[in-house]
């Protein structure tokens, strides 16, 4: 009965059609459009590899140049909407439906296209969630991926930026899908086999090396005294308080400031070895001083970072590197590590409401959230204790049998009360709700739900939401650190002082921190150039960060 093998036969037919444009598995860059038009079918689910860093850009250009008369109504299932071509395909009708996670640089355009009805949106996923659906109900028919090099058998070296590739290939190749990889070069022998060749059907030798965005480089020269003050409070009031050893940092300036204060302020507090030893984190250049001064024991990465390759290669005790010496990152594994093995997630957001719900989605930008909702959530499947986790659990437990108490992951929002152009971070109602209403989303795109958030840190102080006992206390605790925003000025002063007396709110002076000590002199590195010095010249920053 042929119905059992229909998908397999369809796959064989696609590959047969593609062979006309290949020599063995190898396809010249100039034949990409022909190859894609031969392999794709209208309505296919397609994963076009692209996340917040690595882009299969040659294949993206090829897809956008296909004839919409032949290839149309594709369902794109991919992590990132990053390149213009990722949205061009929706304008021409090549693609119709979208499920994704992140859209950083295209955030403004994707908002307009969603409002304009040019994209049929499935959902804005977390990375892990989208990966999970690859194996259940969003399995790609065709995956278009990127690697550094391949041999003629299709053995693929993904290099340090492994990211989504293993997961996408696993789902596609083992469920009758076709996998096409673009590589920077075809070689006789790859340095390391990251993906075995029998999972790769075609290899395109790209016209230019694939694009990688340096997303995790924060220039210390741009750090403000306010960010330094917030970082001091976080280190003393949270890291030291809970003894946080295993953690994940977001990518903002606030957490970068923390990284740069560990070898100075953290050292002064005697915290080396007691906090921040094990990380799920991209190779942030701002972590170099902490690594070099012996703070950091181990780092597993989601992806890599432009310019960090040589440094990582020379620090194999810290990073996960292969026998060839280069980084092996893996987004799915690192997200899982962040979810289950870290005691704290600390990151930033654009909006926080009165209950503590947060979102990075505003009415003009739909940026998505990447992995934040996974790392920034308390995983109910966790079963291993740690001191930090148990302490947070005790603080949060109001009722119930103490013998059945479980811990809590710390989920910390570190924000300045005002963002760029004096836009308040604290709001009565998230823009995400308005967006959901306007475009008819069943689920509002909230990044981190209030019940997962344990602490909010601003320049005004720390609000410990675990210690709040009802909705009113929670609202006043949030208003109490919301500074001079309307939400902050709307506080009940007496109630806020009462919360402060109970330690629910802690001001810099309550933590023994003098705001005037928040000085740039405290930063272990004050410029990108300083970071290069700390690395012994191994860190090679991208051109746009070199100003000397």
């Amino acid at each position, binding site marked *: 009965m042929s119905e059992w093998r229909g998908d397999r036969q369809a796959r064989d037919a696609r590959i047969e059609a593609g062979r006309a444009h290949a020599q063995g598995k190898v396809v010249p860059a100039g034949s990409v459009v022909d190859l894609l038009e031969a392999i794709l079918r209208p309505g296919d689910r397609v994963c076009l590899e692209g996340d917040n860093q690595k882009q299969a850009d040659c294949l993206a250009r090829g897809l956008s140049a296909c004839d919409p008369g032949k290839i149309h109504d594709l369902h794109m299932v991919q992590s990132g909407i990053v390149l213009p071509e990722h949205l061009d395909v929706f304008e021409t009708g090549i693609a119709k439906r979208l499920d994704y996670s992140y859209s950083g640089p295209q955030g403004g355009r994707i908002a307009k296209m969603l409002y304009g009805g040019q994209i049929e949106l499935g959902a804005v996923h977390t990375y892990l969630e989208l990966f999970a659906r690859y194996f259940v109900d969003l399995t790609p028919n065709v995956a278009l991926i990127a690697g550094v090099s391949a041999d003629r058998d299709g053995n693929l070296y993904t290099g340090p930026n492994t990211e989504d590739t293993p997961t996408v290939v696993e789902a596609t190749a083992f469920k009758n899908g076709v996998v096409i990889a673009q590589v920077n070069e075809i070689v006789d022998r790859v340095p390391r086999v990251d993906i075995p060749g029998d999972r790769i059907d075609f290899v395109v030798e790209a016209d230019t090396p694939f694009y990688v965005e340096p997303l995790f480089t924060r220039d210390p020269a741009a750090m*403000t*005294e*306010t960010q330094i*003050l917030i970082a001091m409070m976080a280190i003393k009031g949270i890291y030291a308080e809970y003894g946080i050893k295993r953690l994940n940092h977001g990518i903002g300036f606030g957490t970068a400031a923390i990284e740069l204060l560990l070898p100075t302020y953290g050292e002064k507090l005697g915290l080396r070895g007691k906090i921040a030893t094990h990380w799920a984190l991209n190779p942030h250049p701002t972590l170099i001083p902490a690594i070099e001064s012996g703070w950091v024991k181990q780092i597993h990465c989601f992806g890599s970072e432009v310019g960090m390759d040589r440094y990582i290669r020379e620090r194999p005790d810290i990073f996960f590197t292969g026998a060839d010496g280069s980084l092996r990152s893996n987004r799915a594994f690192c997200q899982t590590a962040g979810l289950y093995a870290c005691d704290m997630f600390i990151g930033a957001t654009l909006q926080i409401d009165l209950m503590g719900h947060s979102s990075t989605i505003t009415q003009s930008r739909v940026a998505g959230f990447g992995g934040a909702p996974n790392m920034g959530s308390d995983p109910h499947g966790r079963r291993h204790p740690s001191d930090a986790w148990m302490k947070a659990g005790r603080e949060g437990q109001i009722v119930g049998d103490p013998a059945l108490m479980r811990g809590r992951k710390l989920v910390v929002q570190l924000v*300045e*009360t*005002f963002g760029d152009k*004096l836009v308040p971070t604290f709001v009565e109602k998230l823009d995400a709700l308005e967006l959901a209403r306007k475009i008819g989303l069943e689920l509002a795109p909230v990044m981190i739900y209030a019940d997962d958030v344990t602490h909010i840190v601003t*320049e*005004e102080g720390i609000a410990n939401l675990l210690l709040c006992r009802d909705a009113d206390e929670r609202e006043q605790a949030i208003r109490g650190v919301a*500074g*001079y925003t309307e939400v902050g*000025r709307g506080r009940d002063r007496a109630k806020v002082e009462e919360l402060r007396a109970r330690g629910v709110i802690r001001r810099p002076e309550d933590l023994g921190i003098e*705001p*005037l000590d*928040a000085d740039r002199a405290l930063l272990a590195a004050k410029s990108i150039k300083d970071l290069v010095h700390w690395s012994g010249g191994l860190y090679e920053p991208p051109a746009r960060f070199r100003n000397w």
Partner: protein
Amino acid sequence: METLTFRHTTKKPLSGSVPSAITGVVASGNLEILLERVLPPDACEVAVETPIAGYGDVWAAVVADFVARAQPGGLRISINDGGARPDTVSLRLLQGARLMEA
């Protein structure tokens, strides 16, 4: 350009005897503050020149908190604002008062 002036009565004069000080920088998102010890010991006046209109209430709140915290009696404070955020204003005011006490 908006000009705002706030006058407060303080419980005491600011300690120290430095006659005047300047802190901060004229730059976008920052501010420059001139402090002068020229008023009666229980008076403080803060004059703000800001390029961003409509934040009078926020300035009033920041200045009132600063006065309550630092008790800057005797000071006339002139602020040349470059669109600084309230937290930066607050920090600079406290830095300025510290310089006058030195």
